[in-house]
């Protein structure tokens, strides 16, 4: 089963005629994803790859194709509009890949979404994938994934792929993988995803990859302690980053002691998570914990 995506997911791509949007829509379709519609204002009536209808608006696309997931690739100045349009059209799950969306725009958007039955993943994220359902909503390379029973969650893109590659290399498959995004204000937190994995009967173990900056990992640790019965393997990256320097992600900057890796690792250890010692040990740690579970 996995989380967020399944065989019934019908994907709509906002920005499908752009460079990134078209590339990843094609890659998703090649993986097996059911891409049912595209939206580019002014391009309504076209066919993408001779099979996917393109619409002028999300509302039209949803009315005609019953799309229930939106994947957004529009440039930063237009991304808040695209998210709000998808939410307004009643799309229940939205993944915004766009990097560089202004933070104060996101502050308003997340509040708008709070009042709607909508889940937003991102922005500035790789998206999500359910290998068992052959459904890929994002920019991750599909072929590194293996269907299985480990749930992966991370703030990052390529580091998530690294985790998946280490798992797959050891024959450990994934129920789902989600990258929640590297920005200071995002739609879905670690805690939200942990709860979904806890409730998913097809996830046995959670691989959690956090990083320096903010306190989201501490909130996740509190959630693990109080609510999560499944074992969690945790890696926190950025232990060697200097304070005050932004490490690529707008969210990854040490602005106080709680933003440091040591504080986050301590919180995770206290919550009973299995600490992954270095980024090279993700697969080995998961394998060892799965071994103990029998």
């Amino acid at each position, binding site marked *: 089963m996995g989380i967020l995506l399944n065989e019934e997911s019908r994907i709509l791509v906002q920005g499908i005629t752009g460079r*990134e949007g078209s*590339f990843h829509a094609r890659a998703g379709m090649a993986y097996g994803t059911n891409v049912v519609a595209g939206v580019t204002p002014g391009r309504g009536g076209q066919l993408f790859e001779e099979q996917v209808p393109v619409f002028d608006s999300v509302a039209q696309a949803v009315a005609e194709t019953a799309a229930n997931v939106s994947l957004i690739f529009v440039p*930063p*100045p237009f991304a808040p509009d695209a998210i709000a349009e998808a939410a307004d059209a009643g799309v229940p799950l939205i993944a915004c890949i766009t990097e*560089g*969306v*202004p*933070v*104060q725009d*996101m*502050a*308003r958007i*997340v*509040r708008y979404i709070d009042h709607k039955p909508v889940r937003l993943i991102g922005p500035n994220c790789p998206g999500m994938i359910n290998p068992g359902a052959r459904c890929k909503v994002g*920019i*991750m*390379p599909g072929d*590194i994934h293996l269907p299985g029973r480990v749930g992966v969650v*991370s*703030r*990052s*893109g*390529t*580091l*998530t*792929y*690294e985790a998946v*590659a*280490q798992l797959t290399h050891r024959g450990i498959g994934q129920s789902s993988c989600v990258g929640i995004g*590297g920005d*200071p*204000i995002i739609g879905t937190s670690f805690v939200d995803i942990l709860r979904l994995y806890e409730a998913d009967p097809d996830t046995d173990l959670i691989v959690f*990859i956090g*990083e*320096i900056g*903010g*306190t*989201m990992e501490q*909130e996740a640790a509190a959630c693990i302690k109080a609510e999560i019965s499944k074992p969690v393997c945790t*890696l926190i*990256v*950025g*232990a*060697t*980053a*200097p304070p*005050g*320097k*932004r*490490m*690529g*992600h*707008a*969210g*990854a900057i040490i602005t*106080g002691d709680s933003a440091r890796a040591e504080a986050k690792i301590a919180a995770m250890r206290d919550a009973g998570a299995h600490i992954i*010692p*270095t*980024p*090279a040990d993700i697969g080995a740690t998961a394998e060892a914990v799965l071994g103990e579970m029998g």
Partner: protein
Amino acid sequence: MKLHEYQAKEIFACYGIPVPRGSVAATAGEARQAAADLGGQAVVKAQVHAGGRGKAGGIKVVRSPEEAEQTAREFLGQNLVTHQTDARGVPVNSVLVEELADIRRELYVALTIDRGFRGPVLLVSAAGGMDIEEVAATNPQDIHTEPIEPVLGLMPYQTRRLAARLNLEPAQARPAIQVLNALYRIFTENDCSLVEINPLIITGDDRVVALDAKLDLEDDSLFRHADLGELRDRSQEDALEAEAADQDIAYVNLEGSVGCLVNGAGLAMATLDVTNAAGAAPANFLDVGGGADEEKVASAVSIILSDPKVNRVLVNIFGGILRCDIAARGIVLAFERQGATLPLIVRMLGTNVVEGKEILQASSLNVTFADTLTEAAAAIRQAGG
């Protein structure tokens, strides 16, 4: 992007926040004139993108135009080292010459984004003029936090509450509340990530004046503030970091000797950790980005190679949007262009990895391949020995 104090104060003045009279000077002669215009007595403040200037000797009270000239001569062209800079410090290319203030009370006021609240928060404290991080650590109850709903904006009941917390007398509360409202407008209308006044003073005659000003703009919003983008002062940035920023490469200069080329910020941080775990120290953080082409990869490698600390280079590429063959071509191009012979450790995975490795193998570069992060760590150790 950071602004200088004098630039931030110009913006403050536009929004009606009182600032001391004064002017910016790029030469000692201009500083002398500026002090003379103020009647001789003045404070001379080094303009650098770093806090802690007072303790570092970058702020001096002068009693005459001659003394102002002398002080400016001492400051200008020198590097100022504060607890927020590295050992080299940052160059002082201008000074702000201002009138002396009649300080009765010193307050602290700031606006920033709180991630937990997912929006802006206003911070105030009666403990102004001090290192606020120290106050936060030792007396957190002295800092009052007011979250602001972005849809409502800063509401009057909130500013009244803050004025009460600061024990302001009625005559002081009115101008102080005007400053808070102006500060919120500055924060939202200019897409700031931080606006800070430390100290915001109350004068003997109950005026409220911003004695200092700090303003950081959010980089991701500069596309809609072209005028503010022009205020960038590259001289205050690390030369390699500034060059990387121009090419849209996320790069942070660090202390070690292992140059790192990575795609993705998370994987780049992980690569630093792996390098450290191997007993070596990274020379930099570098995320070349997803959509990089051959030329951009070459630029990134050139930045690494132009860093004199670097004695070996670690490449960690997970090919996705960025294909391994493109990355390999960029790496070879940069090494050959600069005639570099440093040991190169390459860990590549993902799209077109076979082609990527072939390109590197066929080149004249001194390459060691690693299939996993564990092997990469071993190779770093070996190349360093």
